[in-house]
């Protein structure tokens, strides 16, 4: 028997994961986005990643801001609690939620307008605080929901659908996250699920702030010639630096690699990030090197994708705050209230001064 609200017909050979869930168990409401919107591919990748990782849906909390991108948490993980907050302020709500219960997986979903324009302050501060989260920006260079105005990630010189040229310099959220101390930083493309799914999986098994900036074309307002966030442009300029496989402790390693091709990063939970290099040697454990590399490649007009930086020894907010292991939302009056005797002692000291 199933508890799921959505009635469904399953073929007996439908694959199940270790929890006995099918992929359908990780889906949500039917998307209302435009057909072909990059954001829907990202939702599908989230579903696949959670299925592959045997994540219990109810142990995930999904939070978003406002925008087409921020609507998507409704369209995946229907058995997870979700919170569609206000425009640009998801990071603070997520931070509070994470403070309240350190045991859930926090998935923040946002847009480029939501995170780089109105919400850049909250984005920056959540990164620098080390909030334990997976933060996905569905980056299309425009405000989709308000019909195509430039966002702060739009490249200088790129053209809007109506032919208006953007003169403002772009904000690169990946560069910002690197500078602000995020410990897992990746960029990907909604049109390349093979790259994106493992990056989401790696982020979900990471401890600390993980940012994935996913270029996600807006087919309705920013997919024309002259845009630097269109499917065609991104395909042409995409420079993938590595390919990731996420190996869980329970998995058997089946693939074989030639020596020197592979970098292995063991995360705090025992999961292993196997990075296959593509092209020249790139060291994703070198934060400063990563920042330089990004700048150089950006100057050449390339879009660097892949796992750009990872630090598997990083800490997270609760360690800095030194909070107890039990989630704070599970503490009751016995653990929290000092009681009348302590109060009487306090009264006594307030009488005397």
């Amino acid at each position, binding site marked *: 028997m199933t508890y799921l609200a959505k009635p469904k017909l399953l073929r007996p050979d439908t694959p199940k994961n270790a929890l006995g869930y099918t992929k359908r168990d990780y889906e949500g409401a039917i998307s209302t986005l435009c057909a072909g919107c990059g954001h829907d591919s990202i939702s599908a990748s989230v579903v696949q990643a959670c299925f592959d990782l045997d994540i219990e*849906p*109810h142990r995930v909390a999904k939070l978003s801001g406002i925008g087409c991108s921020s609507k998507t948490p409704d369209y995946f993980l229907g058995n997870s609690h979700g*919170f569609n907050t*206000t425009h640009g*302020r998801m990071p*603070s709500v997520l931070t509070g939620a994470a403070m309240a219960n350190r045991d859930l997986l926090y998935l923040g979903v946002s847009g480029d307008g939501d995170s780089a324009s109105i919400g850049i302050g*909250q984005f920056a501060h959540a990164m620098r605080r080390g909030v334990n989260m997976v933060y996905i920006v569905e980056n299309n260079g425009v405000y989709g929901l308000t019909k195509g105005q430039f966002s702060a990630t739009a490249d200088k010189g790129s053209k809007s659908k109506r032919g208006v040229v953007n003169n403002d310099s772009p904000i690169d959220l990946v560069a910002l996250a690197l500078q602000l101390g995020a410990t897992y930083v990746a960029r990907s493309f909604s049109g390349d699920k093979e790259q994106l799914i493992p990056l989401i999986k790696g982020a979900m098994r990471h401890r600390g702030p993980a940012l994935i900036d996913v270029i996600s074309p807006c087919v309705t307002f920013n997919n024309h010639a002259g845009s630097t966030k269109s499917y065609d442009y991104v395909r042409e300029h995409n420079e993938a630096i590595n390919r990731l496989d996420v190996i869980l402790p329970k998995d058997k390693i089946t693939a074989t690699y030639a020596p020197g091709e592979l970098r292995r990063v063991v995360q705090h939970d025992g999961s292993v990030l196997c990075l296959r290099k593509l092209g020249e040697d790139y060291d994703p454990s070198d934060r400063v090197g990563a920042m330089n590399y990004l700048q150089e490649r950006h100057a050449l007009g390339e879009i660097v994708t892949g796992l750009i930086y990872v630090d598997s020894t990083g800490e997270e907010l609760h360690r800095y705050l030194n909070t107890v292991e039990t989630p704070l*939302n599970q503490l009751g009056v016995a653990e929290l*209230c*000092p009681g009348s005797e302590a109060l009487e002692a306090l009264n006594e000291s307030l009488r005397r001064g």
Partner: protein
Amino acid sequence: MSTVQPLQKSNDFVIKFANINGTGSASANELFARAVMGMGVPVAPRNIFPSNIQGLPTWYEMRVSGEGWLGRKGGCDLMVAMNPQTWDRDVAELSPGGYLFYDSTKMLPRSRFRDDITVLGLPLTEICTREYTDPRQRQLMKNILYVGALTALLDMDFAVVEGLISHQFRGKEKLIASNIQALKLGYDEARAHLPCPIGLRVERSDGVGNRIFSNGNDACGLGAVYGGATVVGWYPITPSTSVIEAFISYCRKFRTDPDNGMGRYAIVQAEDELAAIGMVIGASWNGARAFTATSGPGISLMQEFFGLAYFAEVPAVVVNVQRGGPSTGMPTRTQQSDLIACAYASHGDTKHILLFPEDPYECFTLTAQAFDLAERLQTPVFVMSDLDIGMNEVLCKPFDWDDSRQYDRGKVMSAADLDSGKNFGRYLDVDGDGIPYRTIPGTHPTKGAFFSRGTTRNAYAKYSEAGTDYVYNMERLRRKFVTARKLVPAPVSQKASQPTRYGAIYYGSTSPAMAEAFAMLEKQGVHVDLMRVRAFPFADEVMDFIADHDYVFVVEQNESAQLRTMIINEGDIDPKRLIRVLHYDGTPITAGFIAGRITDIVKQNNVTPLRQQVAS
């Protein structure tokens, strides 16, 4: 030669200390206030301080009242003039027959004094320069020196002050010795060179009882600890900062695991007030008790989030320590001017719960209660304190706590509830009280998950743009606020000694001034029934009280009569029956002001036809 008789008063006068901020005078002044209390005599001290760290004028106004009146009185009977910058205005402020105590190291021309006061000079700087070498010590001991001198001048018990110093510095024997030595020096100098005691006296009494001396901000922080708050997001702003500082220090004391030093709390200093309230909402949504403390400008920034919490029905507790607005207004002065900004915060049709503590005791109890209300009603709750009670030490009832008390977590469905087949609709009004059931993230693998949003949805939390879903929701929210009227703290009333057609409504820090005004009015034969409002939405008793009187004075510390506006709005009350009594210059309201306004109007009312009177 004085042309006026020097004042002769016992246990009923005002001392004002004129200091420079950053010189350590605050703790000496507080020591002196505690010494008066140590003699069993109630005091009500108030800091008047600048928005500045060092070098600007600051005053400490201390009312000594054997009868126990704790409101601000105004006037000054003894000025301790330690700030040359403000000398002229300080001297001018003294009541005729008053006393001026000052540092006479530097000679001042006669013209800088007054003929109708008693001048008491001691060369404090000279004494300190002689006694101490370290400049900081010279400064600090000068303060203790004047405390010693005052002890002699007011005929106080030296042992009481001595005892306080020993207690304050317990464990630090050297500090005790040096401070007591300075105290004694001041005491002896005054006895040797000044006409001790003067006409103002502190006489032993038993007026203090078991009361405590605390400030509202400390009490709010403590109340949040007792109320079970575990998560705080905050941003510093005067006069609310010390609420969080208190919470932090009480958490360290009471919520630290002795074995590993880990804390049962999480506090983040946010980048701004938007993030602060965002954190509170995120944590509350996730089932923890969370709060923030702020003041006017922070309230303005938080508006959009208040609307989200209201509409998505997420608990949140906000301690608003009000100061003078609008804008940065008077950041270090008191007002009650954020009522409307909080009661109807955010765009659209919103309404929020407000609680009005009158003193630190209620700051403690109402803050603790705010968490129960926020979770029961699943909505933001504002504790509307202000600078006057928040940042001044106030004599109040000792804090109390019933150990059998459990936290009211409100309508939360557990995994067992969900498994038992209960119908879960996040915004469904199952019980008819407007309050729906919620689930906490992580509760159940396959049931009870929902998507929170500030956008319209149906009773099952599904996105909806249907007018009927919107109206269902708005009507339920209205029902919820009717329910709230019975859950919030009830008003407190007091009857005049004779039946009367006049009533007075007041709230928060106006309390002590109102109590004293009531006694003054009674003495003059002006009878006014009182009602202290403690919460919004208004309990039915508030409207009944208005119905029972022809005219009701609404006494407030703001310019636009905000509570009056809310009463008119919420109760459909004829505005003519609610008479404004407004004080808003940034100083705490006084009994004299209230009684004066009320008698004026009552007298006028007795001779002029009502209509003309009301128009005035």
